[in-house]
């Protein structure tokens, strides 16, 4: 009897008849084969997008931020919209790996590796925007507090923009460390079964000389747990601080105390949607349907409908407060220029995509439908992009002085920059999907005997057993009465 016995009513996390070796085989063998035609097509499309992005950014750096269609009224446009959007997407990975680890959600094991990778790539994309928005990007290091020859003139520690520098860089570093420390044992698995010299060499370097020693595993577990504990408030802090960029200002439409929780919910919402988009493709292409099951997708869809509704409540609260506060400027921003006005269409796209359509996930049939999930995941991310656009642009384009009212549409370098970050993101993700174990092999093996379908089926007899008998069996595990098919009790 396994101590971590799990009811058969709970859906298995690993489908099919698997043993430890089969798990390795299923997850590692795509790395060892040649990539398919689709991979090459996808990779080169991403690479060309990336190159186009590099051109757009070079153009902007050479001629200055004037090539963007930002103006005196609308100082933040696509760049900051994209920044917040990418950072938001970058929230799901660490949420899955950290918060769900602390909450003991077993289903995270199937999706955490890919979600964390996605987080890291998304934060990389996000970081580009504020850096290149600086214009004179070669002076970007001025945001770091270091003793300098200009006084020393220090940065302003009171500014949320500086908090952002610390938050995003810390988040990136910690996510990367968390991700890589989990990858080390899996790289060792690839290394030890490698047939070619090059693979042995490269995965040998990447695996840092991991052997699987019991002491090392003990420390590894401690490390993962503490990193999860640290990352949990970190995830919440990052988007809170991003929301401070707006909330601490005095612009009507930004100056609200609801922003931190509202932004965090939105970030989780869009992050999970992006995870769905990527994993639906990955599980299909790499034949990992046994590990990323419909049950995993359903769990994430539940998070999507929850956070989507939180975001919906926040929209309504904002509207209520704009009326209730009786500040004419705030009222005008929300009712005249956001829900109506020349940019009003963006508000209604946001409302439809974020609040109305995700409600289909109240139905189990929809949550468990792959096609619906895929389409919804893209709709949600379109909606969340528009949310940031709405917050930024519709609060700015009608300011206090009607003579400076303006309209905003992006120029080609702005669009190119955004497409370039898609290129960067997908180039990285394609490389990851080909050369990295996309599912945490060791973690799957760890839950296999409790949550694997074939092992759960053997638990049926314990379901029928009276409770006191079951408890007595559990106490006498040291006696040699081992059932050869079921793992033993481990006193931990």
């Amino acid at each position, binding site marked *: 009897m396994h101590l971590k016995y799990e009811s058969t009513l709970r859906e298995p996390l690993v489908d099919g008849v698997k043993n430890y*070796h089969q798990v390795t085989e299923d997850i590692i063998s795509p790395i060892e084969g040649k990539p398919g035609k689709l991979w090459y097509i996808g990779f080169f499309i991403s690479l060309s997008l990336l190159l186009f992005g590099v051109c757009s950014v070079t153009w902007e750096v050479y001629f200055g931020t004037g090539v963007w269609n930002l103006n005196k009224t609308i100082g933040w446009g696509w760049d900051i919209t994209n920044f917040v959007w990418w950072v938001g997407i970058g929230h799901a990975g660490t949420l899955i790996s950290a918060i769900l680890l602390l909450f003991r959600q077993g289903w995270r094991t199937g999706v955490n590796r890919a979600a964390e990778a996605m987080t890291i790539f998304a934060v990389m994309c996000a970081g580009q925007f504020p850096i290149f928005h600086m214009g004179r990007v070669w002076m970007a290091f001025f945001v770091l507090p270091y003793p300098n020859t200009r006084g020393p003139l220090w940065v302003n520690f009171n500014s949320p923009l500086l908090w952002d520098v610390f938050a995003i860089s810390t988040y990136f570093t910690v996510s990367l460390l968390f991700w890589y420390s989990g990858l*080390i044992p899996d790289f060792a698995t690839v290394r030890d079964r490698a047939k070619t010299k090059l693979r042995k060499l490269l995965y040998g370097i990447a695996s840092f000389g991991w052997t699987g020693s019991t002491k090392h595993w003990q420390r590894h577990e401690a490390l993962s747990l503490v990193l999860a504990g640290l990352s949990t408030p970190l995830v919440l802090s990052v988007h809170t601080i991003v929301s401070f960029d707006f909330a601490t200002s005095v612009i009507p439409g930004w100056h609200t105390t609801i922003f931190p929780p509202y932004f965090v919910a939105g970030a989780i919402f869009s992050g999970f949607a992006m995870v769905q988009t990527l994993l639906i493709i990955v599980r299909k292409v790499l034949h990992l349907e046994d590990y990323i099951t419909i049950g995993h997708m359903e769990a994430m869809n539940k998070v999507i409908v929850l956070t989507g509704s939180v975001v919906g409540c926040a929209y309504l609260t904002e509207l209520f407060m704009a009326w209730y506060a009786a500040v004419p400027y705030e009222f005008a921003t929300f009712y005249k220029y956001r829900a109506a006005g020349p940019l009003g269409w963006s508000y209604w796209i946001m409302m439809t995509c974020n609040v109305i359509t995700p409600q289909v996930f109240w139905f189990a049939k929809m949550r468990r439908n792959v096609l619906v999930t895929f389409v919804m995941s893209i709709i949600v991310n379109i909606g969340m992009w528009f949310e940031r656009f709405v917050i930024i642009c519709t609060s700015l384009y009608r300011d206090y002085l009607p003579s400076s009212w303006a309209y905003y549409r992006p120029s080609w370098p702005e669009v190119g920059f955004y497409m370039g970050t898609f290129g960067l993101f997908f180039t990285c993700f394609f490389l990851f999907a080909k050369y990295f174990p996309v599912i945490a092999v060791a973690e799957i093996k760890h839950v296999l005997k409790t949550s694997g379908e074939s092992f759960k089926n053997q638990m049926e007899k314990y379901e029928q057993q009276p409770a006191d008998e079951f408890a007595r069996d559990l106490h006498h595990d040291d006696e040699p009465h081992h059932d050869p098919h079921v793992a033993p009790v481990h006193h931990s």
Partner: protein
Amino acid sequence: MAVKNFVVASFDDEAVLFPAVKKVRTAGYKIHDVYTPFPVHGLDHAMGLRETSLHTAGFVYGITGTTTALSCMSWIFTTDWPMNIGGKPHFPLPAFIPITFELTVLFSAVGMVLTFCYLCQLAPFVKKHIFHPRQTDDLFVMAIEVTAKTNAEELKKFLAGIGGTQINEQRAEAGWWYGRYDREDRLFDNKRPEPVNA
């Protein structure tokens, strides 16, 4: 470390491994290590390993981050270059909280990962002896050190009796060295040459 002799046995199930670890320890053999493809909970206790103190290290790194952030920011804003920013106080504690928090997390995470790598001797180009290539796949591999008092043949029989398979004897470096996994490194014994007695 040093080149040593080991008797190596593989187990293919935790159900066999746990009682085996217990029996090997009771029989008085010195378990060098048990290599597992995933963290087996409770194995560290079964082997008599002590708890790790990595958490404590993480805490210490964390408060180092807290103090670094708070002391740097307050020194800069009150002593080094007191600047009037919109008439706000020179020591705005609430405004210092976000950066203090971030640095606490950063110091703790980076410090812990580096400590982890240091303690487990993990780094690029670090190489260690792999007793069985499937120890990172599906086997639980137990390595027992052969000391001057150990009868290797007896030990092998004993291991076979408690469920071990693929039992063999290996002469290997017990520690780590710089090397590449695509090359077989020739180990050398750092035994001193026999003294020539005149």
